[in-house]
């Protein structure tokens, strides 16, 4: 499709999404909200996997950490202000990412996969075995954060459509941010590191610093998703830090197509939708309880036959000639 249309399309989609609450279904709106939140989560991982070439199997650590941060910041029956609790949650994630990044970035490849998994598990055990966040029972967030300007309520997050708009806004903001960053010289350097780390170092780039910056940003953005998810469920427990969560988000990135931001969002939507469909008891009865079996098979098939993801599939239909000016 020509580039004029390509530029216009995201805004069009955004507009459509913004109008969605006019469809009077709370259920679908909440489902779509979940998709938007997972879209943020997936984009944050795509920065790391698709653009920097670092495969992390512990990304749920930041997702969960933000949720727990919110739970711990929220007083028992009062609302906490979103203005400072969201940045605080992001800050906690960024700090944790910075510290673990300095350790895990000393490894590569398969080691990196294993140590990122291990650190996420460590965090899982911290929340599971100690009383910090209510142990294995988890903690409730009885009152959702408040978004006030002085005494005036900017939004009431208890209302599904207003929460939906917040999620949509944050997803669009994350997308724009990443789009700018990845088009910058910093982003090009990350891609260079993914394609040929050795040469980047030989050219004089302090590779470690770039990777650490990417790792930290990635963790911080995942924190936005984790915060929103915790607000939506009103509940956190150690499962949000589990490797099932890490595996799921990795799947979303690959399903959508690594290295394309919009692909990650699409992958997230498809994955959430699939999960919803497979576990629908009305359609599948008893089998719905074991929906993970079908999901597992689906994941195996994607790994074997759809390595470029859905975005890659779409590219095949466009089939650009090889000599066209392209730098990705």
């Amino acid at each position, binding site marked *: 499709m020509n580039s004029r249309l390509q530029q216009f399309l995201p805004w069009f989609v955004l507009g459509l999404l913004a109008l969605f609450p006019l469809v009077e279904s709370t259920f679908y709106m909440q489902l779509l909200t979940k998709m938007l939140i997972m879209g943020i989560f997936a984009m944050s991982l795509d920065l790391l996997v698709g653009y920097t070439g670092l*495969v992390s199997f512990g990304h749920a650590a930041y997702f969960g950490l933000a949720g727990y941060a919110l739970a711990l910041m929220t007083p028992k029956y009062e609302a906490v202000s979103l203005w400072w609790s969201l940045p605080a949650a992001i800050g906690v994630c960024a700090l944790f990412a910075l510290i673990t990044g300095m350790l895990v970035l000393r490894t590569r490849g*398969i080691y990196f996969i294993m140590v990122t998994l291990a650190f996420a598990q460590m965090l899982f055990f911290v929340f599971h075995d100690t009383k910090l966040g209510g142990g294995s029972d988890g903690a409730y967030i009885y009152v959702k954060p408040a978004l006030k300007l002085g005494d005036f309520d900017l939004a009431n997050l208890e209302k599904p459509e207003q929460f939906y708009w917040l999620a949509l806004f944050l997803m669009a903001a994350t997308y724009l941010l990443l789009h700018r960053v990845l088009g910058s010289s910093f982003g090009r350097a990350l891609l260079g590191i993914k394609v040929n780390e050795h040469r980047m170092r030989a050219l004089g780039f302090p590779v470690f610093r770039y990777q650490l910056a990417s790792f930290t940003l990635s963790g911080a953005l995942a924190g936005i998703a984790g915060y929103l998810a915790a607000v939506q469920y009103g509940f956190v427990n150690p499962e949000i830090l589990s490797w099932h969560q890490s595996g799921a988000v990795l799947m979303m990135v*690959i399903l959508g197509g690594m290295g394309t931001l919009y692909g990650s969002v699409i992958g997230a939507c498809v994955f959430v939708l699939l999960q919803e469909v497979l576990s629908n008891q009305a359609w599948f009865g008893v089998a719905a309880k074991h929906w993970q*079996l079908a999901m*597992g098979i689906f994941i*195996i098939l994607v*790994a074997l036959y759809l390595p470029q993801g859905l975005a890659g599939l779409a590219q095949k239909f466009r089939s650009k000639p090889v000599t066209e000016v392209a730098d990705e």
Partner: protein
Amino acid sequence: MDFAFFLIQLLNGLQYGLLLFLVASGLTLVFGIMGIINLAHGSFYMVGAYLAWSLASLTGSLTAAILLAIPLTVVLGMALERLLFRHLYQRDHLYQVLLTYGLILVFEELRSLIWGDDVHGVAVPALLNASIPLTENLSYPVYRLAISGVCLLLAAALYFLIQKTRLGMMIRAGASNRDMVQSLGIDIKLIYTLVFALGIALAAFAGMINAPLSSVFPNMGSQVLIICFVVVVIGGIGSVKGAMAASLMIGLAETFGQVLVPEVAGMIVYVLMAMVLVWRPEGLFGRS
């Protein structure tokens, strides 16, 4: 802590470490020869345990169950290699991670469908159901000593395989190099199938013999897998020697940790890993 108590913890720690070694060596072998990271490795540990339990319930004897289960897991391993893992050899680790993650989900659900979600105990074989007295009041279970003994035997067999055979030579050279293997005049497809089957059979066997001590329960696979990863990171991937050193270290650290500092015992393993990452990121015996 008096001496007898210390001795018991020491023996427990060593036994746990040796068991970890069994599982970790399977993982590191598969990676060393074929370059595949298998997240579902822990699932085979679980499969072994559940097979042992269900066959023991059927036959009334754990020993018989294990003798039946071993060939079953070998066949399972060969089948999976032929059907699935064969397609992963030249692929990026990313896809191996994804595929084996999907496999974990499949295994968990199949286990749930076939054997249910309850926790089950497994009886120790009658022959080994005794204790050796250490002091007036304390005695040590023979079965635990038997496990340690079997693990040591297998470790010795692995040592022989690694040090004294041509296949072992390839492992030591870190060969995931098909041409090199083929130049030894062996059918590479067969080698890969057998090595993979051996790798997961080790994990499954560990699950089988440990079943009386740990019971069989749904999450046992993922629990052991994460620890295995830490073992491999600390020991150095592809190094069986490293796997032994790291397994023993972790076995002892966890066991003593649980009696001395139970609140933070779960974290000890990760602190050790972090220390190794700072000091020697390629692992204690890894190649830099």
